[in-house]
């Protein structure tokens, strides 16, 4: 009789990278639908262009370097969608496509692929697009702030992600399932709210879709946040502080979110290194 020989543990939880990525993708779909409803055909085109760009470049790189093709794990598709959600609806279709090619090709694969990149590809792409095509990357109108109904369906424009912040509600399920980290969003939100109130800016800034996308999807990107428990709390605070610093002095909390998060990505290894937990029982009795 043949028995399989393999190392323990012999039972594992049914969670995989594939599941983590596709679940994030699915949770973002209602937001995409809302943006298509609000902005019409251009939004759909942007989203498809972003996803196609990401898949195209991942396939090209992995074929060219004779690596195993990992499009099935959903990481590229998810990044492409995220990149498309961070552009204004009125841009030409090639913009999110180029963005996704840059994000997945340069920021993800040139830095070592899945799990190795030091900046969130979507975030770095946004900065890249913003610097390269500054006129295209300005929304026709900023989201109107002030009324709570904007949470459900934004009346102003902004980026695609600003369409309907409430459509991201599915993220709470992912947090409950521990597919998404809870410490970072919690500390990020708390810090931002406290600082905004202290500095006297209108609180409605934090109801924008871009900010919530940053809190729940970009800040919690696993490769670019610390792995230590305390490190994640501190990282959340750092994200909040950096966002508010930028937002307070420029008056633009949406761009502040993205620039702040990029800086937070940069200090994440430092936070991790300085928060290595003490061993159970101490080092010496």
């Amino acid at each position, binding site marked *: 009789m043949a028995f399989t*020989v393999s190392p323990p543990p012999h*039972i*594992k939880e049914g969670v*995989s*990278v594939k599941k983590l990525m596709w679940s994030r993708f699915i949770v973002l779909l209602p937001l995409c639908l809302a943006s298509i409803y609000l902005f019409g055909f251009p939004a759909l085109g942007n989203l498809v262009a972003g996803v196609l760009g990401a898949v195209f470049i991942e396939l090209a790189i992995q074929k060219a370097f004779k690596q195993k093709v990992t499009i099935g794990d959903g990481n590229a598709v998810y990044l492409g969608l995220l990149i498309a959600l961070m552009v204004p609806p009125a841009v030409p279709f090639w913009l999110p496509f180029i963005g996704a090619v840059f994000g997945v090709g340069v920021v993800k694969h040139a830095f070592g692929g899945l799990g190795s990149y030091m900046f969130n590809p979507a975030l770095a792409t946004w900065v890249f697009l913003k610097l390269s095509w500054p006129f295209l990357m300005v929304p026709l109108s900023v989201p109107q702030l002030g009324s709570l109904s904007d949470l459900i369906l934004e009346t102003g424009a902004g980026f695609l992600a600003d369409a309907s912040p409430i459509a991201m509600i599915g993220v709470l399920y992912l947090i409950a399932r*521990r597919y998404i980290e809870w410490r970072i969003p919690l500390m990020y939100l708390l810090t931002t709210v406290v600082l905004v109130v202290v500095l006297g800016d209108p609180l409605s800034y934090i109801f924008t879709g871009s900010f919530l996308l940053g809190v729940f999807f970009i800040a919690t990107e696993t490769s670019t946040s610390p*792995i230590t428990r305390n490190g994640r709390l501190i990282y959340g605070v750092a994200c909040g502080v950096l966002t508010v610093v930028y937002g307070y002095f420029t008056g633009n909390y949406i761009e502040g979110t993205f620039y702040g998060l990029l800086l937070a990505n940069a200090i994440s290894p430092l936070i991790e290194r300085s928060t290595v937990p003490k061993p*159970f029982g101490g*080092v010496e*009795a």
Partner: protein
Amino acid sequence: MSDVIRLDKLPEKAIIPMRQHDGIACAPLVKKGEEVLVGQKLGECEGSDLAYVHSPFCGTVESIGLMPNPSGKRILSVVLTPSECTQSVEFVPEKNAPPSRLIQMIKEAGIVEYYEKPTYLALKPGKRIDTLLMNATFPLITHAYLNSLDKVLKGFSLMLEASGISRGVIVVRADDKESIKAFKGAVVDGKPLTIAPIIGKRHADYYLEDIDDRIIVVAAGKITYTPTMMNLLSADVMGRKISLGHEPSDVHVVVCGVKSSKAVYDAIYEGKPYLENAVTVTGAVNKPGSVIVRFGTPIKDVIDACGGYRGEPGKLIINGSMGGVAVYTDEAPVVKNTTGIVIQTKEEVLRDESIACVHCGRCVDVCPVNLLPTRIASYSNLGKYEECEQLYAMNCIECGACAVVCPSKRHLVQLIKYSKLQIHNLSAAEAMEEATK
């Protein structure tokens, strides 16, 4: 407790390894063709970490050679063809023996703890010890011995006597109602046992101060403390955490098992050496349960006693699905440190492929001893063992929780274990260098 079967059917061939714990191997005392009796010593060894091997069967020595073993390796074993005779060597019970004689008898009987240490060594670590813990947190194993609970408790008292330790604490799982009920009805030293829960900072010490009983039972939590989880056991039950690089005996605690307590009773009150054990069989068999098995019985006989395989077996796991060894053959025998057998069907066998770490931190969240499993594993993979040491790799209790939750399906436990081995080798090499200077 009634579902414990005793495996009386003689196996076709009994394989008795000369090394049944993690210590020195014995040299065989018998030759091919020799007749052996029940309880006859088959293996003799010299050194400090030894456990003599006795024959659980009466029969003829068929061969001596390398045979399959539940550890996955091939180990020098005596192969017996058991016969129907029940003749045994003379068992000399000895009551009212002084402590030094008790230790001697425990050593002679070849009793081994569940964490692979010979009992006579475990009981006398040469340090100040104030508490002997009995780890009864394996519900199925404990249930298998509930029928002979008085013997287990007597054995436990004997261990206290032999080691000169003043207090004994029996640890059971808080959700193991059956065992708790049985312990409630048990009597030690003419008094019923006290059952105490561990709540917050009220550890076993708190109850031992109030009661003048020698032995109490505590309901610790909902954890089964596996052999490597000494640090957690000591912390949860006694409130004493073990610092890096130390043993339970450094915090004045010694741990023993249910099986060894019963074996100590047999050794002293009946004069019998360590010949049989309860083994739990779970998973894809027709009648899962506990079986009392004589050492040397092939695993397939144990499975037959449990009604045979259910469906097509895919994996045979010895000692638990979290940290156990998957063996390649069911010809391997049950040995002293075999506790449980888990059978998985072909469909249940995991076929994951490990990919790169995504730094999700799930392993960090579940680690019971505050480690960064993914970082240690990555350094270990790169051969940077000094970095592993700086991340306290030696503190790892090898529970496997990190590998269970890993979405990238990395072999975290194996990498960390490997780094521990390398760190150990490095420090041994350093010590050698110091000595030769």
